């Protein structure tokens, strides 16, 4: 095969492009919520590299070849972006090791894993440390400096005094607000709810990830099938809910501008290793993720269901491929 005819892309360059595309979203996140996310990313990446190197050594393979493709750096970055920023370091580190070992290496490394490694790490943290995983810094009331925050992340357990500066994830507070609305003297109206979400940092952060995702589409690193079907499904389902519900609901537009929607749709759900493979299958896969995310957000036990939606659809991806291929041959 003559090299000249080959297109110049490689796995490493693909991973690098995705990492570059994460910059706008990460920058707005650091600016609007806390710059500590940058430290989290560096921490996660270092732990992940070490864990991967150890695994490759145990498997008697070349650590350098596995690390050079950059896939584990990307996965570690996604995990660091997905968890609450004030998560203690030791928990974050455990999650990262779980991501590398349970999510990737146990299956045989890159390309062999059934589940999205970052989401395996996220789910591991969510079920192990539900308390710390469901409280987020309230940026609108933030009064702590970076130094104090980093210090707060060192102890082995979360100091209860920080509860005063933390709050539930934005989606969780909306859910609580709408549940209590009936009892309150001055119920939260649709207008005040919208105002609350728009004034928060999440629409801007989602916009940042959207910009990066669109750039990936433009560079043809990802195809439109999965992101569009995820976002469209969330939009339609949240829209239907707000039309039919008597209580104030987060509207369709705000729903896709909050939570992990854009990060998930463009950067997590599109992981080709664990997604369905043909274009039609990808659309079905995306609709599945959108629907499950909506169901978990609205009726599930967790405020943000994206990670579990992705993991559930990871399991379905081979089945979708199989069924569609049989159908296509008929």
């Amino acid at each position, binding site marked *: 095969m003559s090299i000249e005819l080959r297109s110049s892309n490689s796995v490493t360059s693909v991973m690098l492009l995705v990492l570059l595309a994460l910059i706008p979203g990460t920058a707005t996140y650091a600016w609007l919520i806390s710059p500590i996310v940058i430290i989290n990313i560096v921490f996660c990446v270092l732990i992940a590299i070490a864990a991967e190197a150890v695994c490759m050594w145990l498997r008697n393979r070349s650590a350098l070849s596995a690390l050079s493709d950059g896939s584990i750096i990307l996965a570690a970055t996604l995990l660091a972006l997905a968890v609450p920023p004030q998560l203690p370091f030791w928990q974050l580190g455990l999650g990262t090791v779980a991501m590398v070992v349970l999510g990737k290496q146990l299956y045989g490394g890159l390309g062999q894993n059934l589940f999205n490694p970052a989401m395996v790490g996220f789910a591991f943290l969510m079920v192990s440390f539900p308390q710390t995983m469901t409280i987020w810094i309230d940026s609108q009331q933030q009064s702590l400096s970076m130094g104090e925050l980093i210090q707060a992340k060192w102890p082995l357990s979360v100091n209860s005094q920080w509860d005063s500066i933390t709050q539930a994830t934005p989606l969780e507070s909306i859910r609580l607000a709408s549940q209590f609305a009936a009892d309150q003297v001055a119920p939260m109206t649709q207008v005040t709810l919208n105002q609350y979400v728009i004034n928060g940092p999440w629409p801007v952060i989602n916009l940042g990830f959207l910009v990066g995702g669109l750039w990936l589409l433009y560079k043809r690193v990802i195809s439109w099938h999965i992101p569009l079907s995820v976002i469209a499904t969330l939009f339609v389902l949240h829209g239907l809910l707000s039309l039919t519900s008597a209580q104030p609901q987060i509207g369709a537009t705000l729903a896709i501008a909050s939570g992990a929607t854009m990060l998930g749709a463009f950067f997590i759900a599109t992981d080709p290793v664990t997604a369905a493979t043909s274009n039609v299958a990808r659309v079905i896969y995306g609709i599945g993720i959108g629907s499950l995310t909506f169901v978990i957000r609205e009726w599930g036990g967790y405020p943000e269901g994206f990670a579990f939606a992705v993991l559930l659809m990871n399991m379905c991806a081979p089945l979708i*491929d199989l069924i569609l291929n049989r159908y296509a041959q008929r």
Partner: protein
Amino acid sequence: MSAFRGGIALAPNKQGLSKPITVVPLPSELVFNTNKPLVNIGDTVLAGQNIAANTIASTSGHISDIQTHRSHSTITLIPDGESKYTPAITNAENPIAAIEAAGLTGLGGAGFSTLKKLQSQQCAELVTLVINAAECEPMIACDEALMLEHAPQVISGINTLMQITCCLQCIIAIEDTKIAAINTIKQALVDSANPKLQLRVIPTRYPGGAETVLLRQLSGAQLTKSQRPADHDMLCFNVATAYSVHHAVANQPIFGRVVTIAGNATNQPCNVSALFGTPLTHLLQHTNNLPGSSTANPPTGKMTIKIGGPLSGRESNASVIDLANTAVDPNCNAIIIERTNQTADEQACIRCGNCADVCPESLLPQQLFRYQSNVDKLNEYQLLNCIECRCCDLVCPSAIQLTDYFKQSKQILQKQSQLQVDAQLAEARYAARETRLVRKAREREQELLEKKRKVAIAPTPAAMDIAAALARAKAGLIKPSDKTS
């Protein structure tokens, strides 16, 4: 004009077209790699004579050597320089007889016998005769060179094919970047004034000239692996075959073809006309392209020589391929000599799906790769429809040579189906043996019964005596009292 699904727009990179086709002089010996030789050492042969199954002598001379190897035999022919035809060629009176006498083989790459193809469709009145002049693979320019210089003969050959097959129309398909060839063919079409012949310009997109892909973009017909174009009312010939047909029906067949020599390690990329059997060393020496002969460019990097195109060709290291014992044959459309410094290491498949996007046959190469030794899955994902165009290899970010894996997988499937055939044969043999044994046992039983019955019908002499005595006793001839008294 509709582009087909998948494929890649590759730069044509036809290097040797600025110069006319040069004729390679007759080499001192011709080499034919074949099996089952029909001649012996010392035999005198004529041009057009069968010297082995599916192999004809490309000129007259005598056989100097026959080497038998494990998988094939190598016949060496020393030409006498007179190029005497067999009587069958000089006496052929109609086109079919002429093509039969010339033993024409298709020059498109599949190496199918032109005669067999024509005989099966003689006056079949199929709708469309397709002349494949697309030549979609980069670097290969032998068909284009032929059309530039011999368009009238090409059209004459096409007219002969039309007469034989009685097709209702003929489509000549050329890629849109071959502007000069399009013009010469257009002019030749005007001159021939046959309204059934039409030119179809197709987009320059690899592998648009692969038979299944070409027929799909011309007519929308979906050929499966087991189908022939005739199943979709079409017949397909390569443009170079049409040129050979023209010469064959003029009772002057040329037992050779145009070969492209190109690649970044050649001194003079060119198109040459060579007899079948011309050793590659002779070809490269004559064109001053023999590897290592150049002093201008100090050799750096790994050199590869490919018989066939840069994508579909057989790749070999120069040391592995025995250039003196490899010769021009009907399928040898190009010799690509390249040097590359870069080597891309194969990485893990990340299932990005780029391969599926470019697959002209709408296969899922990532799935075929994942299930590379799973017979059921390979069949389910239709491995056998793969045309080995290597588009997937070109776009793979992990630099996986998918087509190489698919070739291996195809062998697995072949072995599997062979096993099935063998098993069925064994089963049939067993069943036949069982019935035979049962039949024989029954026959023997029958024989025994027959014998017993014969014994009963035809008694022995002793028994006859007893029977006679008994009869006499009954009749009272001998009285028991007589005996005692």
